[in-house]
């Protein structure tokens, strides 16, 4: 461990807050909400890797790999959903998608 764990956790926390702010502030744009979720998951990965490096366990890295697989499947599903909804309503505004039938 080259830096204290608190610095790594603080960095992860700031990145998480940025992703949260992105998802909240751009709440009318589906793509930017997805980008915010990406940033938040990256911050979680950084926290896991930092913890694994601090306690010298490989488990943190294994879990970051699990998060990566989760993210890739989530993004592929969400983006195909965005393409599908855009084909139906010609917009990516999240407020337009308030009904299930349309």
């Amino acid at each position, binding site marked *: 461990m080259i*830096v*204290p764990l608190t610095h790594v956790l603080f960095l992860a926390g700031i990145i998480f807050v940025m992703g949260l702010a*992105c998802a909240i502030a751009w709440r009318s744009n589906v793509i930017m909400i997805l*980008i915010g979720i990406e940033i938040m998951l990256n911050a979680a990965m950084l926290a896991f890797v*930092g913890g694994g490096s601090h306690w010298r366990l490989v488990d943190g890295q294994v879990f970051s790999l699990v998060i990566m697989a989760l993210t890739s499947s989530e993004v*592929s599903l969400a983006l195909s959903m965005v393409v599908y909804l855009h084909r139906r309503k010609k917009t*990516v505004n999240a407020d337009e998608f308030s009904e299930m039938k349309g």
Partner: protein
Amino acid sequence: MEQTFFYILAVVVLVATLLAITERHAVHAIVYLATSFFALAGIFYLLGAPLVAVFEVIIYAGAIMVLFLFVIMMLDMGQPEKARGPSLKEWWPALLLGAIIIGAMSTLFATNLPETLAKWSYTDARQFSRVLFQRYGVAVEVISLQLLFALVGALYLGRRKQP
């Protein structure tokens, strides 16, 4: 030396992420985000996780960001004049929430600081895969099933409607 690299990369990550979330042009935001992910991969390498760093570059910066770029170009969102960023009215809840979280975190870290630097450890691919496939073998199965489901779902959602 490594500490200096860590702090430089941390600043790069923070600035690139900040630019990405305030950028109005979606393609520019994706490029800033790819920069941020590259710097984060460097941080992972410094933390002794080279395999995760490589996966970060390959999967995040290589696959997921390109997927985002494809979708943005396919939906023709790459025009900055048509794009509309969030106004101040939409920013202030996010800023308030962020300030509260960062303030809470700062007070938490300022109160107790057990600055114990553990010895730097490095995980090579052998150790990593040993733990992954021996202790977490079920997780690998679950991940593969989940990726299969995501593939089937994406194919179903992306199909052309029959004429």
